[in-house]
């Protein structure tokens, strides 16, 4: 399965298991989603459980919160993460705080799916990585898979979870992993071990990172698309780096991060989102606080630049093999 099929399979499995799971969003019904992630669900589960919505993100999330309060488990889709901002108030002030402010009387067990990240020439409005905004909010969980297997297992866990979850899907690797070179074709998931996805139910606990590549020289903290770029760079550079795929940004698997950095003594953080006050800043601070006496070189960050996402120059903006390779050399030199 590719990642889209795995995500589709997760929703199908959960809708079969739990009649309270419903799927809603722009174009998700009859058409099956602009990325085909919800294909076939309406035909199988009917329009009461899978339906298209008006183009109002604030409405989609607000309605989902109300459905969650009724007792359903809505899985709303925001078609592109760039369009999540009109729904921010419902996510930040409502979904995230409902349990806290109501003394646990009302909860909002919604799972907001949204494709995010660049590398598909989507321009400013189809490329952004807003995960840092949500990790800053108390009461939301933020999940970002990097493989089809993880995407399915994590999405099932998110739907079962009783807290509101933001589930960002790295659309650059929906169809296959890639190594970050724009002139090289994407690999197909069918030739990739992570393309093996069981058709039935399984889940991956939220808040647990994965070691995408074990190593001893250096720890790379990455998630989503960047895991694959880093894997290619490390293979090319011949560095024995350990790549930690965070999978869940909040709650974060601090134990795995700490153990890895203490073992290797070096840390590189890679994300696509803009640099300043991005999630890498939090990671950097945590590693510094917990691993300072084990560090043999300064922590480095490779990120997107602090500009709006460019259209034609996106491959210069995007953290690619050159920028990551230079950072690796710099850390290893010290």
């Amino acid at each position: 399965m590719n990642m889209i099929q795995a995500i589709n399979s997760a929703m199908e499995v959960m809708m079969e298991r739990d009649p309270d799971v419903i799927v809603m969003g722009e174009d998700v019904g009859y058409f099956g989603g602009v990325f085909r992630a919800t294909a076939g669900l309406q035909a199988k589960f009917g329009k009461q459980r899978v339906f298209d919505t008006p183009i109002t993100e604030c409405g989609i999330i607000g309605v989902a919160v109300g459905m969650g309060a009724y007792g359903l488990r809505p899985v709303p889709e925001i078609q592109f993460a760039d369009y999540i901002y009109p729904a921010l108030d419902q996510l930040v002030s409502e979904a995230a705080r409902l349990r806290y402010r109501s003394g646990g009387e009302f909860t909002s067990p919604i799972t907001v799916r949204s494709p995010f990240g660049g590398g598909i020439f989507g321009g400013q409005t189809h490329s952004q990585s807003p995960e840092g905004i949500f990790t800053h909010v108390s009461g939301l969980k933020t999940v970002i898979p990097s493989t089809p297997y993880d995407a399915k297992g994590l999405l099932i866990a998110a739907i079962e979870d009783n807290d509101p979850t933001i589930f960002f899907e790295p659309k650059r690797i929906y169809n296959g992993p890639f190594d970050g070179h724009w002139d090289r074709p994407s690999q197909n998931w069918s030739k990739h071990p992570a393309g093996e996805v069981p058709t039935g139910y399984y889940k991956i606990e939220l808040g647990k990172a994965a070691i995408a590549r074990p190593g001893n020289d250096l720890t790379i903290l990455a998630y989503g698309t960047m895991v694959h770029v880093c894997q290619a760079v490390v293979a090319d550079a011949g560095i024995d780096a350990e790549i930690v795929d965070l999978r869940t940004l909040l709650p974060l698997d601090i134990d795995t991060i700490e153990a890895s950095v203490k073992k290797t003594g070096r840390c590189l953080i890679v994300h696509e989102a803009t640099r300043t006050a991005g999630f890498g800043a939090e990671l950097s601070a945590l590693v510094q606080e917990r691993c300072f006496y084990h560090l043999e070189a300064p922590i480095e960050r490779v990120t997107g630049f602090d500009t709006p996402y460019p259209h034609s120059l996106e491959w210069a903006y995007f953290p690619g093999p050159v920028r990551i390779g230079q950072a690796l050399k710099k850390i290893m030199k010290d």
Partner: protein
Amino acid sequence: MTGDLPRPNLPPLSLHVPEPKFRPGDAADFSDIVVPPAGEARRPDTAAAADSFHDLAYTLVRVLDDDNQAVGPWNPRLNPDQLRRMLRMMALTRAFDERMFRAQRQGKTSFYMKCTGEEAVSVAAAMALARDDMCFPSYRQQGILITRDWSMTEMMNQIYSNKGDRLQGKQLPIMYSVKDHGFFSISGNLATQYPQAVGWAMASAAKGDTRIAATWCGEGSTAEGDFHSACTFASVYRAPVIFNVVNNQWAISSFSGFAGAEATTFAARAVGYGIAGLRIDGNDALAVYAATSWAAERARTNQGPTLIEHFTYRAEGHSTSDDPSQYRSADEASEWPLGDPIARLKAHLIAIGEWDDARHAAQDVELAEMVRAAQKEAEKNGILGHGLHQPLDTLFDGVFEEMPWHLREQQAQMLAEETASGRPWDRK
């Protein structure tokens, strides 16, 4: 300037900034408000198409006439016991407000909001809804909880953030949440409850339930995007929901003109969405009851949503933090052409021979005593500011279902700080 078109010889453009008719020092004169006679508005069948009664979005549905009689097709024909209960709940709401306003002035809590002059909007609506219909209120519908017989002591515990507060002191006073009385957690962010009510109603419809949802916001909040998203959703899916817009004329110091009242009515918002719209006399408890029952019947029979504009007046400040004498005429409340909802219902009951001034006065004494007793009971659990009422570690409860490591760490840090500071750990 080298435009292709010649510049026409027109005066410069000017920007219209609305201004209320009266400011402090002005004599209020509401003679321009059109108050149609009670009983005049027609009552369509609840199965009628929403576009067949647009006129009802531009008039005022009224039941109680100038002789204090209930007249016309909207007369809900309540029996005297129901009328007396309605009056009692409205009077109790006012007594509760007065007591809690005073408690705030005495420093027993940080904040309070009265609903004086708007008691009919929540009490009569709550009586017309089924007890298990879900209400998504704004911050001025305490009358719903009182009418649903929720404990006033519990309400006060919340206002005092004391050790009896079921919300563990995590919410601003008056931001109640009572799930088993169909009262959704109040948010301070305006109109966010509107799409949530629609979602709840849609879920109820999708599950084949029989319960409906109702929600309230002020006229000022109709400017929020959430309001319009909710109307679109409700219209598209014919959600079984009642939208109540409480047009009390003032959003803190901004008069209703800043939400668009100079251009049209708030009930007319319904027209553009193709949903049923009613504009009613919000100080006429019988009109509120009748409109709510009618809208509830539409919702329950899959006719979809109804938007009800309750034309009323906020007789007091926005909250205890507000001073309305700084921005509006002092006689507005007394000059308000639709009177006081409690006085009007009382006059009706007297006019039909089912009540009298002596009984009313006795009831006021009784209700004040009830509220006082509830307050005494609540104050046994403490008042805000008198030490800590909740164990410190509860601060971290309920952010998530299970506490993640970073919150556990912060909790431990806070407890260690408390111990190290030598502050009395047991001051709760």
